């Protein structure tokens, strides 16, 4: 049963920050609450104060230009990202990822910022956005800072947010030419949380097709979204063949420390990580080649 709390529904970022500053570590932010209400009901989280930011309309936006890249306000819902023509044209992998995230009802109310701040290592947006080299703009009464999403996860359900600080914007740079990004996850039914998942980005050098840059990021493979640089090193500087993707998968699997639970043992997850890195890597490569 959920415990009682005091509730605030500020309408501006400034009001949110004052409330957080006033109530310190006892205050918890709720956006769509699609993850948070579940943990509150389980009694894992019982905040004294809940600051509901869902009504802060200034944080619900998307914009794109080639030089600035993509900017997504933290309160943009999953469904809006999924359906956006802008996203489908320039960041198709984000739309594909969202389409497999939970159900339509969850995507209708849940927000991208809430998902990232929940810090669940089985979440889908973080690996894809890390593969896209996304940054987060965080704001508090004392100012702003920008952190790489890659460094945002601290531990299971813990992220690099200070008391009094909120995520306001996700920033995604425009991918370089000849870049392909893909994401897939292992699920029993479409929309399930991934038993494991992988996001891979590959950038080829124009002309000779050598892999210039690569990112390999896994979900449900550790206590945080896991970028595996050792696997990327297997790819960078080489003309990519199936065998190299197989090796990258083996390296990623060896680095990963996946959980074992009712959905799959740790050993099974390690095997599936090999499969998914290879499969998603192959798709990213095809896309980088413009196919």
């Amino acid at each position, binding site marked *: 049963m*959920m*415990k*009682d*709390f*005091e*509730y605030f*529904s500020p309408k501006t970022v400034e009001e949110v920050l004052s409330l957080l500053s006033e109530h310190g570590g006892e205050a918890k932010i*709720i956006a769509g*609450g*699609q993850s948070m*209400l*579940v943990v*509150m*009901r*389980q009694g894992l989280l019982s905040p*004294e104060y*809940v600051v*509901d930011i*869902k009504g802060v309309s200034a944080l619900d936006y998307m914009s794109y230009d080639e030089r600035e890249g993509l900017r997504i306000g933290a309160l943009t819902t999953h*469904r809006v990202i999924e359906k956006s023509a802008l996203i489908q044209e320039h960041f198709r992998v984000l739309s594909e990822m969202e389409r497999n995230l939970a*159900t*339509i*009802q*969850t995507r*209708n*109310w849940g927000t991208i910022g809430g998902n990232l701040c929940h810090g669940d290592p089985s979440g889908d947006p973080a690996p894809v956005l890390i593969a896209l080299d996304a940054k987060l703009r965080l704001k508090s009464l004392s100012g702003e800072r920008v952190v790489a999403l890659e460094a945002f996860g601290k531990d299971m359900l813990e992220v690099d947010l200070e008391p009094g600080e909120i995520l306001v914007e996700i920033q995604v740079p425009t991918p370089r030419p000849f870049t392909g990004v893909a994401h897939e996850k292992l699920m029993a*039914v*479409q*929309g399930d949380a991934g038993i494991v998942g992988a996001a891979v980005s590959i950038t080829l050098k124009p002309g000779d097709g050598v892999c210039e840059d690569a990112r390999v990021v896994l979900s449900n493979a550790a206590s945080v979204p896991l970028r595996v640089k050792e696997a990327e090193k297997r790819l960078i500087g080489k003309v990519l063949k199936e065998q190299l993707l197989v090796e990258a998968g083996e390296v990623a699997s060896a680095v990963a420390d996946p959980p074992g639970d009712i959905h799959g043992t740790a050993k099974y997850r390690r095997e599936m990580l090999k499969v998914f890195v290879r499969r998603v890597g192959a798709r990213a490569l095809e896309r980088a080649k413009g196919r």
Partner: protein
Amino acid sequence: MKGEPKELKVKVNGKLYELKVKPKALLSDVLRKELKLTGTKRGCLESTCGVCTVILDGKAVRSCSVLALQSNGHEVTTIEGLAEGDKLHPIQEAFVKQGAIECGFCIPGRVMMAKALLDENPNPTREEVRLAMQGVLCADAGYVKQIEAVEVAAEKMRGGE
């Protein structure tokens, strides 16, 4: 003060309600217990089954996974808001005619899911219907007739017969 009821103004099925609710009250709690709109069912209470689906500002949401206070100033439609008197909504009618209702428990949520889909997309593909229906679990596994019912309703709502 912790747990102190707050004012909630929400339009449900076209009627404006003003009441005071505890912050932890879920939208499904308020619909069922305060407004006595018990057509909306409660199933898993952990955002898995979808039987509590209602429409909030035109979008299907799970009423067990939205704080009632988050609906403040917004508009909710529940299963009670579809029929006009004794005349069933075309989606309800199609569910009855196609034999798509078995035990019936998930049907209110499922009909709301279908309504949200058809309001946004009057001519969905079967894949789109399937994806929408997937958001509400049926313990009887009666999905095929439910999908057919949505397609029949879609056709009728587009003006065909």
